[in-house]
Each structure stands twice: as structure tokens, then as C-alpha cells.
């Protein structure tokens, strides 16, 4: 039997507004507990919500980026449930008339293929506070700083068929919201969180299987693992004659398993109704058009432009455009060095490795775009070889000046002096009698390969500084003269 996994995602994105969605309290991350929870956030009697216009602008930007319909008249509803981090006893959210309607987005998979994932809708809502279950004499501590932070909840159709597709979709959403600048997208701080609806069915089957919802996945890696392990659990269950129950499950990353959140099985009845404190929010066509005109270049458009203007491969262009900061950095290096392909290789190669090693984002890169461009220019004009360039790069990474200063200070300039190279070639040939003999006796088509030994010795003698193209030419002439 061949099984097919069906996945739909609900992604919560915190919008990076200054103040909350319904109050003037700050949304800054990391403040002392409850110092940013005002009377509205605490649900004090007599308070009324007043929506933040920036949250709507951000939601509309997102909707336009997802090719979605914009809800010109959106309505807030109350979703009723009791939990201590929700002081009002209901979450103000949208159900019937969300700000963003149906849309679609293209995702790119590692094998180079693409796929369209449909957006069901996206709505505005408020975040809840945080419960801390450390030991407060057997009680829980509540911090309401996060209560009322604006969120968009982005609901996809069940269009994904593997964990890898789900991750690709989530990366795309991450990329879009950070390009738009409507969220910092920082998953470690909970700015982007994801619930996954997972079901399985036999391949070819039309009807969807019963789904389980995995809650609160907060890293790309965990999402992939959680979906895989949950799909396998469902397959094993059905193959053993069992039935999948529709329920909410929690992923335990330590044990790599999902488990049922039994407490929520009791009556998941939110009794939604329109919020009487808030009137419909009406947006005009002109307003939406102005926002449309202000949208920045989005990842797909940038990717296509990188392929066309810089002659990059589809894969490279996609890698470089996933994050706006990386794309901007690359463009600076490409422009200043005039060498887009070398720039792409360095940004995705040495620079990515360096940032990874030092756990830094490209915004905090120890090597600036200007310095990297300077280095590439010296490779291009043959001042240094690519190999020496890597040494120079490491020195620049320690903050010791630009490429020219490092090359000068360390005496790394490439030797392109014909006389000096000829001497090194002669020395190596003289010291390698056996290898020269082998070269002479070899079939002509084997000879180019055999030159590698000599090149290696010469490079070693020059400490890597001899111009490789010149070595090759002079060496070949001299060896062939001995035939």
C-alpha cells in the first residue's frame, strides 16, 4: 500500500507594530513581565478596544503579496474560551469576514521543482499572554506583555504532500513577511509559529483522512520532524486496524513523538459571535491601491531578476533571494565588484560558512559587502588566486582591514613575474627526475593529468602565490621541450 500525506498549515505571524492591536501598550520583546500590559490588555471593566491602523496596513500588504482578495469590509468576532493568559475570556479574531481572502503562493523545492499552494484566508487577531509553569509554590505565573500583540493567522488549503513541501511553504511565508518588513520572523522569539494539520490517505484516494493538529511548532527543523513522525504514527495506526481520532497533539522534540493533548478534547466549542465592541473596518480601493504601489520587490520577482540580470542559475538565484538581507548584500557585492557570479559563489560559500560558524546573521557579518567586493576585484585582476583569497577572507573576518591592506600586510600578492615563475618551474623539474621520465614515456592524452604533480610542487614552493595560469603555461612549454 502506498500512503499519501496531506498537510495544511496555520501560521501565526506577529506583526512588528510599535503598539498593540487594540491598545496603546508597547509590543517590544523582552521587557520586564507585565510592564507592557495596560488596562485594555488586562480586560479591566469599562475599557474598549481601538484598532491599530498599521496592523491593517500590514495585513493588506501580506494579502497583496499572496495574490489574495482583500476584505474591504472586515469584521471582528469573539472566540470564547477560558485560559489565564487570556484575561477577557475571549480572543478577538476574525472568522466570517477576514481581512485577507483566498490567494496562492509558489513554493520552490530542493529538487528545483515548483508548486502552487492555495491560501484559504488570513485574518487579524490578538496574541495571548504567557503562562510560566516554573515553581511558584504550585501556582502558575502569568505575564501579559504579549497579550494583544497583533497577529495574522495564515491558513493554507491542505495542498502540501510531504514534510519538505510544508517546510518550503513556511520558508516562503517567512521570506514574504520579512521582505515586506511586517514581521521580524524570528521563530526563536515566537514571532512566527505554526500549527500543522496532518492526515494520511491511500494514494489515489479522493477523500481526505481524519486529521490531527500538531500545535505550536517553532522551528523549521521541528516542523519537518513532527510532520514525519505524526504521518508515520497515523499510517502504523491504520495498518494495525486502528482509526485516527481528530484531536490536538503536541510534538515532543526530546522524544521525537507527538502526543495527545487530552485536556482540550473536552468541548472545543468556541461559540464565536461578532464582537459588539468593534464596528466593521472598511477599506477603500484607493487605500489598497496606494499600498499596492508601495510594495517592495518580492522574493519571486527578485529571483527572476537575479537570473536574468546577473546570469545566475535558478538554484543560486533562489538561495540568494530567500532572505532580503542576503539579497541586498549580494547585490552590493555584485555591483561593487562587477562580478556577479563570483559574488554569488562567495556569498553562498565562504560567507555563509563563516556566518554559520559564528552564528551570526548577514546583517552582523564580520566582512562587509564592500570588503568582499574589494576581495573579489583582486581575484579578478589576478592580484591573488582564489586559494589565497580564502586566506585573505579569514583575516578580514577577524576585522583586520580590507583586502588590499591584508594582501599588502601579509605579502600575499600573486607572483606573475615570468622570470620568477620560470625559475620555480626549472627547480621543480630538476628535482623531479622520475616524474619527468614518466611524463615523457606517457601517452600524450595522459600527460595533462600528470602535470598536476608539478603544479602542486610549484605552488608549494611559491606558498600558493604563483599565478596558476602562468604556471600551467610555462610548465607545459618546458616539459614538452623535453620530449
Amino acid at each position, binding site marked *: 500500500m502506498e500512503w499519501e500525506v496531506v498537510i495544511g498549515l496555520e501560521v501565526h505571524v506577529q506583526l512588528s507594530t510599535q503598539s498593540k492591536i487594540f491598545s496603546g501598550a508597547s509590543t517590544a520583546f523582552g521587557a520586564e*513581565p507585565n510592564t507592557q500590559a495596560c488596562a485594555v490588555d488586562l480586560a479591566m471593566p469599562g475599557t474598549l478596544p481601538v484598532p491599530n491602523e*498599521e496592523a491593517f496596513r500590514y495585513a493588506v500588504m501580506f494579502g497583496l503579496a499572496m495574490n489574495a482578495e482583500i476584505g474591504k469590509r472586515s469584521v471582528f468576532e469573539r472566540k470564547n474560551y477560558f485560559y489565564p493568559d487570556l484575561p477577557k475570556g475571549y480572543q478577538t479574531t476574525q472568522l466570517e469576514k477576514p481581512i485577507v481572502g483566498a490567494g496562492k503562493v509558489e513554493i520552490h523545492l530542493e529538487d528545483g521543482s515548483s508548486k502552487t499552494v492555495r491560501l484559504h484566508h488570513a485574518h487579524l487577531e490578538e496574541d495571548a499572554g504567557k503562562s510560566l509553569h516554573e515553581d511558584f509554590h504550585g501556582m*502558575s505565573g502569568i505575564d501579559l506583555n504579549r497579550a494583544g500583540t497583533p497577529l495574522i493567522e495564515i491558513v493554507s488549503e491542505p495542498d502540501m504532500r510531504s514534510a519538505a513541501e510544508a517546510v518550503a511553504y513556511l520558508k516562503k511565508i517567512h521570506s514574504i513577511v520579512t521582505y515586506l518588513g511586517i514581521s521580524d520572523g524570528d521563530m526563536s522569539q515566537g514571532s512566527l509559529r505554526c500549527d500543522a494539520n496532518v492526515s494520511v490517505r491511500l494514494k489515489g484516494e479522493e477523500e481526505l483522512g481524519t486529521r490531527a493538529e500538531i500545535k505550536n511548532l517553532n522551528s523549521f527543523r521541528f516542523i519537518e520532524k513532527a510532520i514525519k513522525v505524526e504521518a508515520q504514527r497515523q499510517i502504523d495506526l491504520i495498518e494495525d486496524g486502528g482509526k485516527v481520532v481528530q484531536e490536538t497533539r503536541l510534538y515532543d522534540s526530546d522524544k521525537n513523538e507527538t502526543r495527545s493533548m487530552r485536556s482540550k478534547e473536552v468541548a472545543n466549542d468556541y*461559540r464565536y459571535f461578532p464582537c459588539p465592541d468593534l464596528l466593521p473596518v472598511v477599506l477603500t480601493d484607493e487605500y489598497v491601491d496606494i499600498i499596492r504601489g508601495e510594495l517592495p520587490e518580492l522574493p519571486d520577482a527578485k529571483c527572476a531578476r537575479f537570473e536574468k540580470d546577473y546570469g545566475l542559475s535558478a538554484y543560486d538565484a533562489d538561495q540568494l533571494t530567500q532572505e532580503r538581507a542576503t539579497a541586498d548584500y549580494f547585490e552590493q557585492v555584485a555591483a561593487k565588484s562587477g562580478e556577479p557570479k563570483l559574488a554569488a559563489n562567495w556569498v553562498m560559500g565562504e560567507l555563509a560558512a563563516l556566518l554559520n560558524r559564528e552564528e551570526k546573521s548577514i546583517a552582523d557579518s564580520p566582512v562587509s559587502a564592500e570588503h568582499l567586493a574589494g576581495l573579489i576585484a583582486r581575484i579578478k585582476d589576478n592580484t591573488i588566486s582564489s586559494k589565497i583569497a580564502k586566506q585573505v577572507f579569514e583575516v578580514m573576518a577577524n576585522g583586520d582591514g580590507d583586502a588590499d591592506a591584508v594582501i599588502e600586510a601579509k605579502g600575499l600578492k600573486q607572483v606573475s613575474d615570468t622570470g620568477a615563475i620560470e625559475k620555480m618551474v626549472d627547480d621543480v623539474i630538476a628535482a623531479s627526475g622520475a616524474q619527468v621520465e614518466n611524463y615523457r614515456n606517457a601517452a600524450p592524452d595522459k600527460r595533462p593529468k600528470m602535470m598536476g604533480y608539478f603544479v602542486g610542487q610549484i605552488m608549494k614552493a611559491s606558498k600558493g602565490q604563483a599565478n596558476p595560469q602562468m604556471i600551467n603555461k610555462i610548465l607545459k612549454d618546458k616539459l614538452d621541450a623535453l620530449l
Partner: protein
Amino acid sequence: MAVDAQTVEKLAELARIAISEETIDEVSNRLGDVLQLVDQLQAVNTDGVEPMAHPLDAVQVLRKDEVTEPNRRDEFLALAPQTEAGLYLVPKVID
């Protein structure tokens, strides 16, 4: 039409309201009366009528994205029965 006892108990649990065994009948009848009124409203033909959000067709006013609320934590914490380290303490809840 009275609401059955089971429904009353479920609603009570959802609303976190304690209803004693003796009062279930009474609550059930009163809820039934409310629902009867709702049924009467439901009977009206509303085809093609947009739900009304406000009698004067007012729409929501939005505010600028500015932080206008100062930190008044101490005043708010003073109203709570139990606090510690700047947190409100509540009976343990684990999901």
C-alpha cells in the same frame, strides 16, 4: 421548549458557571424561553438583507500606531490576589 439537562451542563462548563443540581430545571426553562424568542426572530425572512453592525452604518475608527500607555504595573498588580516577581499568580494550569 426547554433545553435538556445535558446541554445545560455543557454550557455551564463552557462558561465556567457552577449550576447546582436543583436549579438545572429552572435554568433549562429560562434558556428555553430565550431560544423561543430566537426562533421567532429566525422565522423572519431575511433573504438579501445584510447583517446590521450599527444602526447609523458607522464604521470603525482606527488609531495611529503609537505607544501611548505608560507602565502602570504596580497599580495593576496591587489589584490581584496573588503576585510574585512581577507576575500574576493563578492556580496551576498545564495543557
